[in-house]
Each structure stands twice: as C-alpha cells, then as structure tokens.
C-alpha cells in the first residue's frame, strides 16, 4: 500500500479510468498543458493528448453543457470547475439539464457526466475561492454529490463517479489536496456512491460530518479519548442523496449527535441529516442534536484572524464533543 496525497488520488483515479475506458475524457480551464491550477490533471495531457484532455475557455456553462452533450452521446466526460465558487454559471446546465435528462427522456437518454470542483476554505482564498457549494445542489433529485475525505475514498469514489450512468458532482477539498495523505491499495478498487463510512467507533458521542471536517473530528476524538470520552465518527462521503440508514444507525449508537460542516449553518447538508435523525431516532436521543458550522455570514473573510474565526477547527469540534459528552 502506497501513501499518497489527496490530490494524487484524484490524478491516479483519472489516469486509471482514462486508461481503462477510452470514452473517458477531461475538460476544463487549464487542465491540459498547465495540468490544472492545483495540478490535479498533471501528466494527463502528455499521456492522453489534447483530444482527451481539453483546455476550455473561461465558460463554466459551456464546460458542463459540452460535457452533458458528449455524455448523452455515450462518452464519459469529467468536467473540471476550477473553483466550486465558479460553478454557478453552469448551475442551469447541472440542475435543469444534467439532473433531469433521464427523467425527461423517459429513460431513453442519460447524462453520465462527472463534475469535479475544488471547494472549501482555510487557504486564505477570500470571497471567491473559499465557498462550500454543496447545499445549492443538495435538493436536486437526479444528482449525486460526493465529498470524500481521504485519498482512499477519493480514488475509489472518483472511479465510481466516472462509471456512474448519471451525473455526479465530485467536490474535492482544496485544503485537503496536499494536507491529507493516506494509504491507497496498489490494486484496482472502487467504492460505492451513496454509502457513508464509519471512520471511528465510539460510545459517548456520534459525530456525523464529511470532507476535511472528518479529520478535525478524528483529531479531536484522539485527544478526547485520553479524557475517557469515546467518539463515534461517521463520514457521509456522499452528501446527496444521504445514506439515511447509516445516519440513523450512527445516531442511535450513542444518542448524542454532533453534526459538523464547514458550510454556513442554515439550510446546509447537515440540516437534512438533523431532520433525518429527528424523524427516526426520537426514542434513542439522549441530548439535543447539535450542529457545528460556519456562521450565517455572506462570505468567508479574507483577513487571516477572521478566517480562522469563521472556520471550524479541531479545537471547536473538540469543545462541541466535550460539551455533548458532559450533557
């Protein structure tokens, strides 16, 4: 098993899928010669050529629109949004076209497109390079939204996304790209979309989260274990549609649930998780369900101290778990 970074997992998955299936191609801003602004597509242009690694204009609507068209004709496009912040010009293509193609055509057509987008803050990115955009797409039936936390999950889930016969939005935390490293098997594997994963077993408090916050929770849990507080951590991995069964099981496990997202609080993905728990777990709950999220402010601030204040941190997660444990 090799230890690789989060972004290397992205590159490996793309490379292996392109090798496996010649219908797979990538398109996006600077994905070709430049290898992507984060270097996620590094080396693909050299290996697969300009017809399968396509540099596009700064036009997200076109990137996704072209991808949908190609997908409908049988190809497997992987469209890159340079930052998830810039997805909104493509929102019409994603919500009104990609998500509804199968339904509208009575199952005659489908749009097996994967839309990759780096999201998230903590990189001193300010207003236009820090946002979490998942909630905007997380009530659009027809879409799947995958948000992995580890290199292992990234690789396995990106492959499944590319092989999925329906559109998938694949969010990659840009701060995790080089921060998070992990073991990945040498042999071929995929992971199922729509399945959450228990990242740590525990008995006192359940933390349900996704993305980079999973690592905050793991770090906090490690510290709290020394104080005798046992934390159960569920990584959603797919935030839409939710793995309700796993959410319910995890909530029942301890009866004290902390939900964590880097997104702003109201109407976020974890709000739906909270509703699922409320609908199903009343008689197992031992404390009010708590949400730890960014404040409901318009944007992540640029100034470093304010950014830190805005973001969730391992310390904030630790405090919230401790608070629930003591409840």
């Amino acid at each position, binding site marked *: 098993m090799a230890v690789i970074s989060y972004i290397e997992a992205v590159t490996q998955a793309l490379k292996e899928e392109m090798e496996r299936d010649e219908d797979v191609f990538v398109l996006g801003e600077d994905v070709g010669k430049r290898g992507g602004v984060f270097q996620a597509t590094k080396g693909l242009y050299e290996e697969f050529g300009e017809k399968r690694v396509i540099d596009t204009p700064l036009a997200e609507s076109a990137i996704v629109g072209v991808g949908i068209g190609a997908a409908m004709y049988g190809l497997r496009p992987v469209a890159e949004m340079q930052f998830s912040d810039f997805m909104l010009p493509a929102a019409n293509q994603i919500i009104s076209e990609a998500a509804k193609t199968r339904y509208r055509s009575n199952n005659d057509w489908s749009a097996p497109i994967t839309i990759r987008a780096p999201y998230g803050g903590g990189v001193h990115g300010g207003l236009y390079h820090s946002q979490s955009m998942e909630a905007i797409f997380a009530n659009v039936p027809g879409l799947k939204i995958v948000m992995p936390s580890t290199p292992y999950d990234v690789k396995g889930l990106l492959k499944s996304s590319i092989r999925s016969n329906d559109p998938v939005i694949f969010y990659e935390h840009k701060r995790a790209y080089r921060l998070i490293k992990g073991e990945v098997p040498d042999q071929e594997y995929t992971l199922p979309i729509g399945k959450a994963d228990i990242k740590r077993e525990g*008995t*006192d408090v359940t933390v349900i989260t996704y993305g980079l916050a999973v690592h905050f929770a793991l770090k906090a849990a490690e510290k709290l274990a020394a104080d005798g507080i046992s934390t159960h951590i569920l990584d959603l991995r797919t935030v839409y549609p939710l793995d309700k069964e796993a959410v319910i099981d995890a909530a029942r496990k301890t*009866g004290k649930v902390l939900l964590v997202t880097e997104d702003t609080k109201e109407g976020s993905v974890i709000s739906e998780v909270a509703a699922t728990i409320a609908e199903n777990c*009343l*008689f*197992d*709950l*031992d404390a009010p369900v708590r949400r730890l999220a960014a404040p409901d402010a318009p944007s992540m601030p640029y100034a470093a101290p304010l950014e830190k204040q805005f973001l969730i941190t391992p310390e904030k997660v630790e405090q919230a778990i401790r608070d629930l444990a003591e*409840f």
Partner: protein
Amino acid sequence: MSVRQMEMPQLGESVTEGTISQWLVSVGDKVSKYDPIAEITTDKVNAEVPSSFSGKITALLAEEGDTLPVGKVMCSIETSEGEPAAEAVPDQTSAATSSADTDQDQSMKKRYSPAVLRLAQENDVDLEQLTGSGRSGRITRKDVEHFIASGKAAQQHSSSAPSAAHTGSAASFSEAVAQAVPKRSEPAVQSEAGDIDIPLTGVRRAIARNMVRSKHEIPHAWTMIEVDVTNLVNYRNQIKNIFHKKEGTKLTYLPFFIKAIVAALKEFPRINSTWAGDRIIEKKAVNISLAVAAEDALYVPVIRHADEKSIKGLAIAVNEMAAKVRENRLSPDDMQGGTFTINNTGSFGSIESQPIINYPQAAILSIESIVKRPVVVNDMIAIRDMVNLCISIDHRVLDGLVTGHFLARVKERLENISPENTPIY
C-alpha cells in the same frame, strides 16, 4: 478557635430534607448556643433551627429557598469551644471543600431524555434510584444502560414485587399509575410580564401532593344532610359566658359537633377505617384530624382519642391546635395518626362543600355555616338554626347506606342536644 459545622437537622421521623425559608443570621454574626439561626420548612412543619454552638458565623452554605437533605452542612460557625483533637483544622477545610464540590446543581436530575425514558420503561428501572453523571445531575442514557447491565434493574424490580403483593391492588394501582404515566417535567406554564412567581413552600408542595394522591386513588362520593341545631345554639348561648369565665377558654359550636360525630363513629366504626388494598382496616382509635387554615396553608392537626374527651376536653384541644397553627408551633407528631377528618368550613361562611378525603382515611366531613332559615315544623313555618353537613367518602370502603345511617345518627344527636342530655364535663 475552630470551625464547626451546622447540619440540616432531622425534623421528624419520615423527614428527609428541609427547605431553608429564611436565614436569621448573616456571615459575621455572633450567635450563642440555642439561638435560632434559620427557619426551615419541611413537608410537615415549619421550624426554627437553633445553633448547636456559640461563636461567629463564618459561612452560609445554602441560599434561602434551597432544599437540603438531612445531615447536609448548612453553615459553619467559628467557635472557641474545646473540641476533640481528632477534628483537626485541615480536615475541616478539606471536608468543607469536598462538600462544596458535591453540592452541585441538580436541576437536570429529573429532565429525562427520550432515550432514558424509553430504556427505563422497557427495563422497569426506577429512575429515582439512579445518580446522574450528566450536567447538573442529569441521568444520561449511558447511566441507565450501565444500571441495566449491572443487573440492578432486575433487583430493583424483584424487591418491589413482594411489597406490592402484600399491600394489594391499591399499592399496585398507584405503582401502575406511576409506571404508566412517564415521569416528565410539568409543562412549563409561562409567567407573563407583571405576574408574580410564588415559590412553593414545603407545606404547599405537601398539600399539592396529598390532594393529587387522594383524588387519583380514592373514588370520592359525596352527600349532604341538613340539621336543625336550634337547640344547640340556644344551649351554647346559655352557657358560653359562664364557661369562658370558669374555664378561661371559649366554647364554640365545634366541640359539640365533634362530640356528636365521634359518638356516631363509635356506632359505625366502618366510617372510621382505611382502605388497605386487600382488606379494610377499621381503626380502634378515634383520632380526629381537624382541618385548620393558616395564612396560606392548610394543616390537619390531630385530636387523639377524641372519644375519650368531654366537650370541655374537646374545646381545649381545638383551641390548643388552633393556637399551635397560628404560632407555627405544630410538630410533625401533632399531625400524625388521624382516622377521620372534620373540616370547619362554616367558619368562613360556606354553606356547602365537597371536601377531598385526607388520605388514607375513608371519609371527611365538613360542618357548614349555621344559618337561620324558615323551615316547616309540625306543618308550621318556623325560624330555625340550620346547618349543612357534607361528607365525602371513599366509595371502595363505604356505600351510601352506611354513610346515610351514620349521618342520620349525627343528625339525631345534634338535634337532641339539651342541658339534660348533653353534659359539658
């Protein structure tokens, strides 16, 4: 010099806690032994706590309104009295700090989460027996799970089963109610701006608990008779001044009523009984509980062996009880052992009432106002002194027939009161 600690005293046999209604001293005050330092309210009685030491108050360890278990430290007093060498000063301070540590807020102790309630119900756990490890004493799901895993739940259950069998269905009924109705915090009644929140005293709490218990468990039935007490009124008016002069105490109508009722109770002992689940116990002693209203509470002191007292004896007993209530001198013993309750509602002008039985007795009787009314006597209209007697009975124990006979006997005795057949002594 040493620091001694005053503990919450035990103010009666079954008393387990007391509420500090008022501190009579402050930090820094000098007190002598036996000086009152605080007023305590318990379920049964209000009392002043005398100091056990002479010295200076150094700390009050509870607020007014705090309820402390018996034996809990209330305050500390610096005293110059000699003391056993074993009680060294460092021990005292460590004891004080540890008691301060355990003196935690227990406000969440009875706030049960859905998970805790469900587990308790499914496994027959009496949550009162658990100690909460959560914030402010809250019992957590884990606490219940540990309790169940430790096997104590089964023990708790098996130990409660035989006692239920002994006392029979009444006990199991109340237990069944307690189990069927999940313990929940009462719905919060919000006070609005300008409303006044009145904290509950121990007595108020006890009244509420007893009333609810009685109404919950006892199927009440109610009846009323009217009695012509013209003879009684005349007789009492005739002798009251002489009596007062001679005995130094007032002669009211009440002793006459008690006398008649007690005599009837001797004839119908079933009225003087109690429901025991699998049987009815007819009480040998005739101890009359007398409902006496205080400013904002109701006490029921007991006149013991009322059947052995003359009208004069009853008059003295009634006045003494009334004085004790007024002066806040009732002891818990004064309120125990009643077998039948008399309620003098007439004293505030009532002419009809439906009293709630004083649990676990079988009946309670209200004496209403004596009023002059036109009534038909020998086919003529006459102005007579009339009084209504209202009785509530435990219909498990008593039926209408025996109650009717009992009331008829009371009526007969009252209507036949005369200087000839009603001696005062």
